[in-house]
């Protein structure tokens, strides 16, 4: 029995950041890296299933990322993942979520898991599409924003619940193998002590290239993507002001502002 968990090392903004010269991302040195919060929950869900199962279950985490993501993968190993796979190739740079999903699907085909978990979204890009796109490449059933799950490893189907608007719960049965994107709050992720993280450093991380997965350069990067980031920028701050005084004063001031905004000289 095997559960594959797709994880991502996300970037968070440090104080006083700057935009990269090409204007498409934040300058690397202003980013703080950590495991995506949603992935913490999907990994925990997989590890919980493993721990409560009487049959042996293997939890494998996979990330499409450069070497710096090893730190987050080790954290996953410390929390109970049995193996970690990292896929990287310089050509992967610039991939959108669909191209990343293509790589993840290739890993899933090679691993043959009974279930694939992903986080609902990543906290840095927030496309919320990687997991679902992976299901599309695999041709597997999928469900998004799962907030509770009953699944016995090896079972033909699983039952999960989703929270809908208006306080409604949606209970759904799904055929396995399936791709589920896991919502925050489904469980309480465990703490990985520094000691366990250090011990996990001894566990190997399997590094795969595109060739290992029978993918080509055209499958990833900008050529393999359906979208491309044009620019990343800080929008101009909205300007608001409180106009005080009696109605006539307020009206005069308002008119003046409108004229200024139109570019009329006053």
């Amino acid at each position, binding site marked *: 029995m095997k559960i594959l968990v797709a994880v991502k090392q996300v970037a968070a903004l440090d*104080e*006083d950041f700057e935009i990269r010269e090409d204007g498409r991302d934040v300058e690397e040195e202003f980013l*703080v890296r950590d495991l995506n919060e949603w992935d913490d929950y999907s990994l925990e869900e997989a590890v919980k299933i493993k721990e409560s199962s009487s049959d042996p279950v293997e939890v494998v985490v996979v990330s499409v990322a450069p070497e710096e993501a090893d730190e987050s993968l080790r954290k996953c190993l410390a929390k109970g993942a049995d193996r970690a796979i990292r896929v990287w190739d310089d050509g992967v740079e610039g991939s959108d979520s669909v191209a990343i999903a293509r790589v993840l699907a290739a890993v899933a085909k090679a691993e043959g898991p009974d279930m694939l978990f992903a986080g609902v979204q990543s906290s840095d890009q927030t496309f919320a599409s990687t997991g679902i796109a992976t299901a599309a490449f695999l041709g597997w059933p999928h469900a998004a924003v799962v907030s509770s799950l009953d699944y016995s490893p090896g079972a033909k189907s699983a039952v999960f619940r989703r929270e809908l608007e208006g306080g409604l719960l949606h209970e759904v049965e799904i055929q396995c193998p399936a791709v589920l994107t896991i919502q925050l709050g489904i469980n309480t992720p465990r*703490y990985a*002590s*520094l000691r*366990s*993280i*250090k011990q996990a450093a001894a566990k190997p991380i399997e590094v795969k290239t595109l060739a290992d997965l029978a993918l080509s350069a055209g499958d990833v990067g900008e050529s393999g993507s359906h979208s491309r980031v044009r620019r990343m920028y800080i929008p101009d701050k909205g300007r608001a002001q409180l106009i005080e005084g009696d109605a006539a004063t307020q009206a005069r001031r308002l008119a003046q502002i409108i004229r200024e905004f139109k570019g009329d000289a006053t």
Partner: protein
Amino acid sequence: VSRTDAVTRILFEAFPTAEVRLFYALGYTAIGIFCWGVYVQIRKYRRGTALALPGSVRARVGDMIGKVLSHRTVDRRDHAAGGAHRLIFYGFALLFLGTATITLQYDILEPLFGIRFWQGKFYLIFSLVLDIAGVAMLGGLLYMMYRRGWMKLPKLDYARPDRSPGDPDFDRPQYRREDWAFLWTLVIIGFTGYFLEAARLVWLQARPDVWDTRWWSPVGAAIAEGLGSLGLTAHGGGVLRLSLWWFHGLLALIFIALIPFTKVKHIFTAAASLMVRDPLAAQRLPRVPEAQATPGISKITDFTWKQLLNLDACTKCGRCHEACPARAVGAPLSPRDVILSLREFANATLESGTLPPAAELEVHGKSPGQVAMETLWSCRTCMACVEICPVAVEHVPIIVQMRRKLVEDGAMDPLLTKTLQTIHKTGNSFGESKRKRGAWTKVLPFKVKDARKEPVDVLWFVGDYASFDPRNQKVTQIFAALLHEAGVDFGILYDGESNAGNDVRRVGEEGLYEVLAESNISALAGATFNTIVTTDPHSYNTIRNEYPDFGGKYEIQHYTSFLKKLFADGKLEVGRPLGFRTTFHDPCHLGRFNKGYEAPRDLLRIVGCELVDMKRSRDNSFCCGAGGGRIWIPDPVGSEKPAQNRIREAAAIPGLEVYVVSCPKDLTMFEDALKTTGNEGKFVVKELIELVREAVPVRQAQALLA
């Protein structure tokens, strides 16, 4: 036998040979049971893990003897109990030595070498000394009975804050029965000893060597006079003597046989515990040995032999129970009960011939003898328990080592989990960017040197709270201005500094502590300086006492002694004596941990403040509740917080104007407690640094500090 020159102790006179033989048989049996018991106890300790003790054995023994003979530790904070125990101790010791010397002559020296010394003047003086010793012991015992039976001291109440009425181990009545059995046994042995002495005098009243010297045993002689006047004849005295002899003797033998199995064993275990004491037990926590598979304490066999001995040394005197700030506010923790629970657990599992299976050795949990995680997380590691324990029980390292196991299992408050992750990620508990660590310097009209870039005389280790907490930043800026004013060549590590790790270590996250300590030590290695100064007692403690274990050896001072020296050297001068009526809160990590009691008080005097100490001050200072990582764990809603308890104590000082603290966390805790206890407006909470600033005319940074 000549009756005139051989005045001596009457032993087996007129005993049938069979009875003498029976007595010896019983005596050897009692000693045999005693030795078996000692073996079982030692086997129990040896089932703990190994520990090498540093320092010389001679110094340890000397230290122990000094404490036992002076009763210094028993006397503290309870002179009545100390005095009574001293009487019992010396009385018992003299009576024991007296009896032992009888055996020495009668059973060893005389039969083997024909040496007799128990006669003549020597015997008479000894007889007098032992009679007085008996009075001392009985006096002490009777006072202890009064104390237990009538004074109803809360610290002698065995009801547990971590159990509910109805739980099998809620108030442990077996302890009360044992206490009384112990007292009564010794009292009866004492009284029957005197009556036996009296009966012997009445019985042998015709013998001048006995009767004429009777007043050398004044208590016995007085009772003999009384018995005589009540009509006891010499024959009756003989009968009474024989039956009392057996009763007294059997009771004494039973007492000896039971020593290793009852609280009486504290005679040995308390002395041994004092001997193996670690003077830095709470200040410098033990590292996790490389070879250890799981960190911390999970099973009873994970304790060191010394810790198992500690458990047995506890005399249930309740001083830690009384001093514990968690217990005082109703948290489910009493250091006494942690120790007693573990002792019950150790006795149930480690005294049997074969060790029970591993599953039965797990000390974490809610069953009798186990310690619940709520109990362990209630501890503030303030060291009040370790500091006051008369027999050197070291509670704090035990609690922290048990927490290490909880941290490994993730069994902790979610907010604490978050904080630890935050510290790991950013190096500080505020979750702020590393870059912002030195941001507080920006408003200063002078530049604070980056000690990583240029050599400084004084390296200031700022610490998390002083760096990031907005209220504390103001104090930090004032301290910088004072240093600048005094012409001190100082600098900081800016973003090279991380949380010092003191509280992370006390939480039990040893791996993260190692990361923090190593990171700071390597940052310090990249700076050139002569001495370290900090305003944070927590950083002060770990850098001073714990970094040396990681290769970081520095000279470090808390700001109170540093400022005091600046005044002494004339670098700072008081322009305006303040004249406030103040009280001073000793921070645990400055006071109890590092004995920094005087410098802050001297500073208060220097700036012209009147100091009224609270009842709980100096070594008995009452923790603000923030220690041991508790600042990151919310206190239960509705219950009193230690800081509130403390502010109420201060509020009772008539005319109090300023409640003075000298620790960033204290400022946060007590300003909050001042508001929540409704004392706002009655007096204020201030950092000592702020008072110094008010008294010293600071020219350079006037605008900033106005």
